[in-house]
């Protein structure tokens, strides 16, 4: 734990910090959000209501939150990491308990202006606590078994809590994100090799068990897998959504059918067109050119995160920045795979574009942390 690692004297202070913000990153994020406004305007049939305007307001709020978070020195955030993790964990447990008892099947906390999902908070808190943990842990102990178990517990706790909600998508994101944080921190590759091969073995065993007396999944679960692998086997049931989503994307062609001219989304063939499947509207109306441009923006955000992390000699800051970039990447990669039919539909929004408050606010706070790390990096 070393405050002294930061050379406070060379760190900008006061309003000068604004000049040292990672402005290109802010511009990229705003561009992505702008694409979101445009698409929300389009899917509402050319109207700011009911989605585009609230989304703009939320983005404004998110931007403000980002600035506030960025102004606070990163070492303060590091010291608050464990607290943030504990608060998130408590909220997750609370929502699980009270959601089950008193509030119906509610999985969120009403803040008045928005609904906060503790599982969203946890995505950032987990990145923070793991970064802080590996900052605190001497480098040589990183791969020793006892010190590998602790972060595993940190990851599996919230994963299990979100899994029972049930929110398979978020649970998978938490687990993958946490695991990759451990990889970034330098945990020996052999651990990952073992886990990966064990996972592959399990999948193999599950498929091999089909139709045998020791079948590991129920028949209906296998049928769900079948539907994912070939949606056309169930065109009117579960496969309907993904089939329509693929039609929307594919029919866009090179340059798309024109702004607000996408028949699949305008005529409601496309499901969840303002949340999970908003990318298909973009791909339908602006075609391959539009889709690849948004993908490029996302990749640029990721590259700027990695670059910022590599510039930063502080271990906590690097890990945090890489972790936020990773979380961002997982969001858009899983969502896009899902809407292109490469992954099962698990309900992961497209970051900063899909309509939704909690995910956006949490993401902006996370980028605030990245900005703080950038401003207060050792020089």
């Amino acid at each position, binding site marked *: 734990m070393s405050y002294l690692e930061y050379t406070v004297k060379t760190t900008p202070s006061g309003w000068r910090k604004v000049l040292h913000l990672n402005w290109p990153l802010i511009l990229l994020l705003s561009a992505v959000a702008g694409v979101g406004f445009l698409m929300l305007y389009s899917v509402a049939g050319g109207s700011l209501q009911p989605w585009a305007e609230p989304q703009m307001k939320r983005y404004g709020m998110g931007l403000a939150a980002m600035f506030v978070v960025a102004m606070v020195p990163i070492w303060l955030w590091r010291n608050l990491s464990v607290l943030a993790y504990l608060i998130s964990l408590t909220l997750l447990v609370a929502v699980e308990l009270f959601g089950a008892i008193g509030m119906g099947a509610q999985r969120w906390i009403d803040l008045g202006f928005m609904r906060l999902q503790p599982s969203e908070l946890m995505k950032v808190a987990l990145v923070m606590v793991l970064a802080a943990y590996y900052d605190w842990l001497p480098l040589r102990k990183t791969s020793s078994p006892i010190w590998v178990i602790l972060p595993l517990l940190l990851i599996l706790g919230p994963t299990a809590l979100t899994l029972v909600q049930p929110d398979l998508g978020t649970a998978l994101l938490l687990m993958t994100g946490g695991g990759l944080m451990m990889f970034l921190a330098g945990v020996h590759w052999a651990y990952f090799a073992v886990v990966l091969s064990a996972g592959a073995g399990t999948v193999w065993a599950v498929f091999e068990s089909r139709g045998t007396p020791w079948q590991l999944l129920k028949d209906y679960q296998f049928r769900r897998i079948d539907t994912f692998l070939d949606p056309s086997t169930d065109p009117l049931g579960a496969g309907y959504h993904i089939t329509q989503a693929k039609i929307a994307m594919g029919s866009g062609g090179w340059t798309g059918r024109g702004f607000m001219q996408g*028949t699949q989304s305008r005529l409601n063939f496309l499901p969840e067109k303002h949340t999970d499947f908003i990318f298909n509207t973009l791909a339908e109306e602006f075609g391959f050119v539009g889709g*690849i441009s948004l993908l490029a923006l*996302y990749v640029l955000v990721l590259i700027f995160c990695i670059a910022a992390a590599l510039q930063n000699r502080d271990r906590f800051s690097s890990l945090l920045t890489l972790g936020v970039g990773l979380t961002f990447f997982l969001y858009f990669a899983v969502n896009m795979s899902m809407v292109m039919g490469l992954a099962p539909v698990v309900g992961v929004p497209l970051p900063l574009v899909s309509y939704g408050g909690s995910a956006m606010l949490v993401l902006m706070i996370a980028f605030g942390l990245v900005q703080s790390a950038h401003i207060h990096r050792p020089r």
Partner: protein
Amino acid sequence: MRRTPKESTDSWKKISRRALLLGGAQMALAGTLGLRMRHMQVDQADQFRLLAEENRINIRLIPPTRGRIFDRNGKVIAENEPTYRITIVREDAGEIDEVIARLSALVDLDPDELNRAMAEMKRSAPFLPITVADRVSWDAISRVAVNAPALPGVTPEVGLSRFYPQHGNFAHVAGYVGPVSERDLTRYEDPEPVLSIPRFQIGKVGVEAKFEDALRGKAGAKRVEVNAVGRVMRELDRQEGDSGADIQLTVDSGLQDYVTARLGIESASCVVMDVEKGDLLAIASAPTYDPNKFVRGISVPDYAVLRDNDHRPLASKTVQDAYPPGSTFKMVVALAALDAGLLSPDDTYWCPGHLEVGSRRFHCWKRTGHGHVNLEHSLRESCDVFYYELAMKVGIEKIAAMARKMGFGDAPDVPMSAVTAGLVPDKDWKRRERGAEWLIGDTVNASIGQGFVLSSPLQQAVMTARVATGRAVRPRLIKTIDGVEPPIEGGEDLGLNPNHLRWVRRGMYAVMNNRRGTGYRSRVDHEPYLMAGKSGTSQVLNRVVRNEDVPWEERDHALFVAYAPFEAPRIAVSVVVEHGGGGSAAAAPIARDVVLQALYGGTPPLDAYPASDRGRIEAQQERLERERRVREQEAQSRA
């Protein structure tokens, strides 16, 4: 605990290595996503575009307007009248129960229909119009229109429905239309899509069914854009269809109306045919029914009444019922004998009132016998023994050949339902169908149109027309289709010796105009319109009893055929009164009235009738005229 510079550098090196490794993997994944996008949006774009178009574009058929049916003078027999129905769109109605309550205060809503509509409304999408009242009156529609602001979601809609303004008169000829049934669909190998339009109607019987293709026309189509739940967003384009062809019948509806009324409540039929072209001027079957009931979908009790009536109103008796022709067949036997050279007009046979054939005794209708009978007398007084003798001489094969030449044994080519071929028996037929040898007694029976011989009233009329002209007249029901007259078939010379025909005709003339003729009481007393005819009685049960002594359904059928005017024939008529008793008593007066009505083109003057009949005829004419006015008024009030 401050890190050593070495530790710090190690940490940075490790993170950098792993970050670059992971970053590389992330880029690779993003690249995969990009490639997948390219594959779907560039390589597979066409097929996805097609699927998207299939999703959104729906083809809706526009039902064609059915062709109308007219009589020979352009009077309407079948037309399309606007019908009004009331529909409700649930999502526009808001408080549906309240709207229905308000609506039922204005319009009589059938509770059954309403329950069905409510059930349908719950099942179907909220934006689809559901019919709550069908075939409502114009007044009801106006009331709904005036109160439109209080009835959100309620729309009066107009459609076309078949209407037969002449009601029963053409029920058996034009037939009727009805909704497409499952059976109709299976009848066609590749049913036209238009048949699956709700409420679409097709011809079920008669001309409506036989000329279905011409009358139906071609459906148009419009392409509409629909959304995911099937709501129509807009019309993309439309292609109008062709309305069906109008058909004009040869029937004169004035005469048809008269004939139908004249037959009245009898179970009877009558055909009036133009002997030149074969035009059917009237072809009526009684009693009849209102085809409009079938268009609306006849109720089960209404249908049961028609089905269970022993006078069989649903049967088209003129073409689908075959009767033994009775003595009207004697012209055929006489012509066969003349043609075979086995009879000359002066040959006589002795009629003692019966004839022994083998061990069987065949009676003449006149038990006391006719004495010496020649051809003219045999027809005039309908002597049976004369024909027994003649037929045994000629043989059944020659008689059958002549019968076929005169139009028996073959279904007349008229576009009506269930047209029968009747039956002309011969030795082959009996061996084939009955597995027995032809007996001489069969020939004797056939000679007076009993036994196996069967013919329809239409065939009788054709035979009469052929005797009157000597030409192969064929019946014709269709005058024009879409304004084009189909070529007239038949009319070629039958190849009969004109003298033979003249002798037979003279016999038929004597039937009507000789004091001793069987039809003398039903003669015409107007020189230019004198008739020639022949009565017939076809036995229902082979018993020797008086008709008055047996129940109605066991009485003989009364038949009569005639043509007129005798000197220059214009029309041939055949009448069958089922269970009417003797042909000369029950059928001949009808034939005479119909002939005069046809030749005068309206109600004939009383002096066309013999003086002794005029009082009775005047009363009958007044009664029919009164009934006609009542029908006319009813028709007007319904329209």
